[in-house]
C-alpha cells in the first residue's frame, strides 16, 4: 500500500503530464527541425532524471557499503531500475530526433555515447542483482559506486575522442517560449521520479518483510 504523500505526488504528476501536451503544442517550432524538435520536451527531462537516479544510486550504494544500512541498498536498487527506465526513454526518443535532424539514427555524439555507456553500466547492475546469487547486493553496490565515479571519465574521454570529428550542438540556447514547457516537463518527470523510487522502495521493504515472515513460518 502506498502512503499518502506518494499518492498525492502521483496525482500531481499525472495532472502535469496531462497538461504537458497543451504547453508543448503551443510552444513555437524550432526553425530548422520543425515538429520533431518537440521530442526535446520528453527527451531532455528523461536524461536529467537518469543522471539524478545514477547519483542517488551511487551515493546510496556507498552508504550501504560503508555503513551497512539495508535501507540504503533498497534505495540504490530502486534508483538503478529507474535510471535504466529513464535511460531507455532517452535512448528511444534520441534516435528519432537524430534521424530527422542529422540523417542518421545514431550520431556518436558525446551525449549519446555517454548515455549508452551509463545505460549499459546500470543494466549490468540489474543483471548482477538478478543473476549474481547470494551476496549480490554488496557486489552491485560496488558496481554502482564505480559507475558513478566513471561518469566524468567517460564524459571527458568521449568528448576528446569525438572532437577529432565535426561536432554537432544538440541543445541550442532556448528561447523563453520553449524553456517554459521544458521546465514544466522536467518538474513533472521529477515528481514521477520521486513517486517511482518511493513506491519501488516500499515494494522492496514489503518483500523483505514477507521473506522474514516466511522464514519464521518455516521454522515453526
Amino acid at each position, binding site marked *: 500500500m502506498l502512503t499518502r504523500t506518494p499518492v498525492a505526488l502521483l496525482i500531481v504528476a499525472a495532472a502535469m503530464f496531462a497538461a504537458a501536451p497543451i504547453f508543448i503544442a503551443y510552444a513555437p517550432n524550432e526553425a530548422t527541425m520543425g515538429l520533431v524538435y518537440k521530442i526535446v520536451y520528453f527527451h531532455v527531462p528523461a536524461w536529467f532524471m537518469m543522471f539524478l537516479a545514477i547519483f542517488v544510486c551511487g551515493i546510496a550504494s556507498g552508504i550501504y557499503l560503508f555503513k551497512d544500512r539495508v535501507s540504503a541498498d533498497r534505495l540504490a536498487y530502486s534508483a538503478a531500475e529507474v535510471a535504466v527506465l529513464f535511460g531507455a526513454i532517452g535512448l528511444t526518443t534520441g534516435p528519432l530526433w537524430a534521424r530527422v535532424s542529422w540523417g542518421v539514427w545514431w550520431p556518436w555524439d558525446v551525449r549519446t555515447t555517454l548515455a549508452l555507456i*551509463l545505460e549499459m553500466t546500470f543494466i*549490468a547492475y540489474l543483471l548482477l542483482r538478478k543473476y549474481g546469487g547470494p551476496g549480490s547486493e554488496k*557486489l552491485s553496490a*560496488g558496481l554502482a559506486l564505480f559507475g558513478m565515479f566513471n561518469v566524468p571519465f567517460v564524459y571527458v*574521454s568521449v568528448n576528446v575522442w569525438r572532437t577529432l570529428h565535426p561536432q554537432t550542438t544538440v541543445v541550442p540556447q532556448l528561447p523563453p517560449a520553449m524553456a517554459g514547457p521544458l521546465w514544466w516537463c522536467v518538474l513533472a518527470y521529477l515528481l514521477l521520479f520521486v513517486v517511482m523510487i518511493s513506491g519501488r522502495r516500499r515494494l522492496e521493504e514489503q518483500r523483505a518483510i514477507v521473506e522474514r515472515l516466511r522464514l519464521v513460518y518455516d521454522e515453526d
Partner: protein
Amino acid sequence: MCKDIRVESRSREMLYTTTFFAASCVLVFSFAFVRSGRPVVGAEAGIIWVALAYAGQLALGRAFERELHQDALRGLLLAPVDRAAIFVGKLLGIMLLMVVVEAVVVFFVAVFFSTTFFDYGLLFIGLLVAGTIGFACVGALFAAMLARSQSRTVLLPVLLYPITVPVLIAGVSGTLSLIQSEPNLDLARFWLALIVFFDVVFMTLALWTFEPLMTE
C-alpha cells in the same frame, strides 16, 4: 602473489593459454582489417587494445579460480594481513601476466601490419602500462567480488567493459595519435594523463571498497 607466480612458473598454464588466445585475436582481426593485402589505416591501435582487453578478461576470470578449491579464498581473507595487501598481490600477478601478453600482441601486430610503434617508445609504453594498471585494478576487484558467484564467467565481462570504457578509448586514441603519419604528441600526452588520473581514482576506490566488498 609470490605463490601465484610460483604456481604459474611451474605450470605456465595461464601464460601459455592467454598469450595464445591474444595472438589468435590478432589473427582474427587481421582477417577483418586487411583488404586486398593492405591493412586498413589505423586499425592496429584498436586491435592491440581489444586483444589486450579480451586476454586480460580471460586472465582475470582465472585469477581467483585457484582460490576456490577448498575455500582457500576465505582462508586468505582470514589471514592476519591487511586485506588490501591481498588485493595488491593479486593485482600485481595479473598485471605481470598482462605485460607479457602485451609484448607478444605488440610484436604480432607490428609484424602483421608492418607498423612501427616505437618511434615514440616512451609514450607508447606509458600508455600500455597505465592502461594495464587501470584495466587490471578494476578487473581484479570485480573478479574478486564475483569469485564466489555462480555465474562469474558471464558477469565479469558484463561489469568490466562499461566501467573500463574510458581506458579503452584513451588507449586506442592515444596509440592512434602516435602511429598515424603525422603523430600528435600533445594528444597522446593528454590521453596518457587521463589514464593515469583514472588509475589514481579507481585504485583508491578499489583499495577502499575491497574490505567491505569481501566481507560476507
